[in-house]
Every structure is written in C-alpha cells, then in structure tokens.
C-alpha cells in the first residue's frame, strides 16, 4: 500500500509542475487577451465616432432602420399591406430582355457597383430615402407600370422591404424576383458594373 502511493507520487511529480505552469501561464495570457479586448473596443468606438456614417451604440434591425428612413419620406407610412408578388428567373429574364420593365436592385451600392443585372437601377434598402429622392423622376414615370425588385438572393429581405415600401407609396405593379443576384449570376447571365445612374 505504502509503496504504491509513493510510486504514484513519484510518477506524478514530473508532469504536474508543467500542468500547473501551463494553467498559470494561460491565466496570465488571458489577462493580456482581456486587456487587448478592452483596447480594441475603445479603438472601435473611436473609429466609429469619426467614420463617415457612425452607427448608434445600440443596434437597430434593418426593418427598424427602414421604418425610420420611410418616415422621412411620408409622415405616416401605410405599412400594413399585402406583400408583393414574386416571380422566377425565366419571367425575370424575359422582362430584362424586353427592356420595358423598370428593374430595381435593392442591395447596398457597394454590391451594385461590383455587379448587377444590365439595365437595373440601384434603389438600396440601406439608403432608401436618399436613393428614392434621387430617382424620383424615373420612379414617378413608372408609377403605374410594372417594376421588379431583386436583392442578393437566398433569404435576403431587401427586395421585399423595398417592394412593399413602393406599394405603400402608391406604386401599383411591383413584384419581387426572389432568386436575386445569386440566381442571375449562377445562370451565367450577363452582368453590368459601375455606379447607378
């Protein structure tokens, strides 16, 4: 009995100090990581403060931001309306080829500039009120004509938000191309680049 205890102790004596050193070192280094995190947060707050478009400290969802944007256009947006109808790639493609339908890209302008459907105009959900005012002449000319909106694809909400906003602003025929930019580019269809007009 006595010998077995001693032998276990003898075997353990080698790895134990290393394990203890390791644990102590990790705790010390985690302190360094914590300091790094505080410094990074401070730096991040300063960067945000002096950026061209500072964000608020508390996050607002795209829907909340969009509501705020819309209230700068109309005092009380009539929001509760039926959602816009959707179309697939084939119908969208023929509308693009016919060049008779106004195609709107609801993605942020940085995405639009990298690649968009030829002939599309950028009405970004991100910057809706600004873009809406800028495009008012084109949009007003299409108030009663068909308009198709798209965004990235997948589960993106931008096209639906923009389409519903347009419907609530009195546009009569607005549909959403749900496949979006992903479906368009995956089908190997042509792309245009550069800023919106």
């Amino acid at each position: 009995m006595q010998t077995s205890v001693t032998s276990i102790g003898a075997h353990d004596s080698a790895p134990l100090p290393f394990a203890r050193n390791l644990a102590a070192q990790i705790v010390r280094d985690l302190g360094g990581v914590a300091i790094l995190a505080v410094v990074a947060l401070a730096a991040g707050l300063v960067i945000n403060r002096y950026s061209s478009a500072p964000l608020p400290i508390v996050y607002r969802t795209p829907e909340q931001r969009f509501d705020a944007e819309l209230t700068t256009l109309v005092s009380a947006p009539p929001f509760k309306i039926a959602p816009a109808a959707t179309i697939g790639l084939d119908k969208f493609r023929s509308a693009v080829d016919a060049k008779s339908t106004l195609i709107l890209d609801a993605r942020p302008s940085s995405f639009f500039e990298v690649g968009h459907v030829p002939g599309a105009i950028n009405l970004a959900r991100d910057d809706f009120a600004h873009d809406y005012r800028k495009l008012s002449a084109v949009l007003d000319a299409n108030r009663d004509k068909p308009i198709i909106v798209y965004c990235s694809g997948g589960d993106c909400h931008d096209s639906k938000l923009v389409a519903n906003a347009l419907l609530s602003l009195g546009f009569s025929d607005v549909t959403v191309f749900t496949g979006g930019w992903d479906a368009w580019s995956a089908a190997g269809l042509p792309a245009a680049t550069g800023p919106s007009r």
Partner: protein
Amino acid sequence: MVGRRIAGRYGAFTMTHTDNSRRSYAVLALSLAIAAIFIYAGIDKLRDPLQFADSIAAFAILPAVFVNLLAFGLPPFEIASGLLLLGPRTRRVGALAIAVITVMFLVALASALLRGLTLDCGCFGPGAPSRPRMWVELGLDSVLFCGAVYVYLQSMARVSARI
C-alpha cells in the same frame, strides 16, 4: 528568424537540432498565415460596419445592446491579434486571443447550424447567406483554432525551454 536564432544557439549541442528548427519554422509559417488571415478579415470588416452588425444580429444570440459594440470591437481585435502573432515576444498572447475568438465563432456558427438558421457568417466580409458556406466556415474556424493552439503551446514550450 526565430528558427535560425534558436538553431544557432542550441543547434551544435543538441541531437534534435533539425527537429527543433523545423518546428520553429512551422510555428513561424503558421503564425504568418493566421496573422494574414485575421488582419485581412479585420480590415475587411472595418469597411462596412453596418453590414457586419447585421451579420452578427442574424445569429440571434446577442441582445441588441451588445451587437454594435461587438461590431465596433471585433475588427480592431482581429487586426491587433494578427499583429501580435508577428512578434516573437507577443506571439503567445496573439495566439491565445485568436484561439479565444475562433472558439467564439465556432460556438456561434454551430448554434446557428443547430437552430437551422441560414445566414451569412460575416467571418470574411459579407456574402450571400448559405448553409454550405456556413459548414465550410465552421471547418476553416476549426483549422484556425487548432493552428492558434499549436502556436500557443509551441511558443510557451520555447519560453520554458529558455528558462
């Protein structure tokens, strides 16, 4: 640099000379690669903070109060961790910092996958939300985590070897 110095100091006297220097070159190469990835990812996130905040919010883990704070703090944290990895003396803290955030990413991604969410991870700049991409990023995060832990343990072994 590091490998050569250690090889020079101990090389002539030890049997494991090539083994040691090979290992320190591996640590150096791994550190450079991880540093490059995180500095790039950090700078990329700084370009569009709003998009990044939306990516964080899509995980539906953090309450709104913390989302923007994480969006402010994470990019500088990633860049700083990458820079710390480059210096031999600061490498340990940098590697641990990267191990900590990769664990954070792994937990967030795994929980999103388990909850059936399809989202844009936001790990390396914005993109279209897709589940296959989430799995790829989960794998990449695991590799980065293992790399950071390896660099951390190796840097520590070096410190204790010097004492």
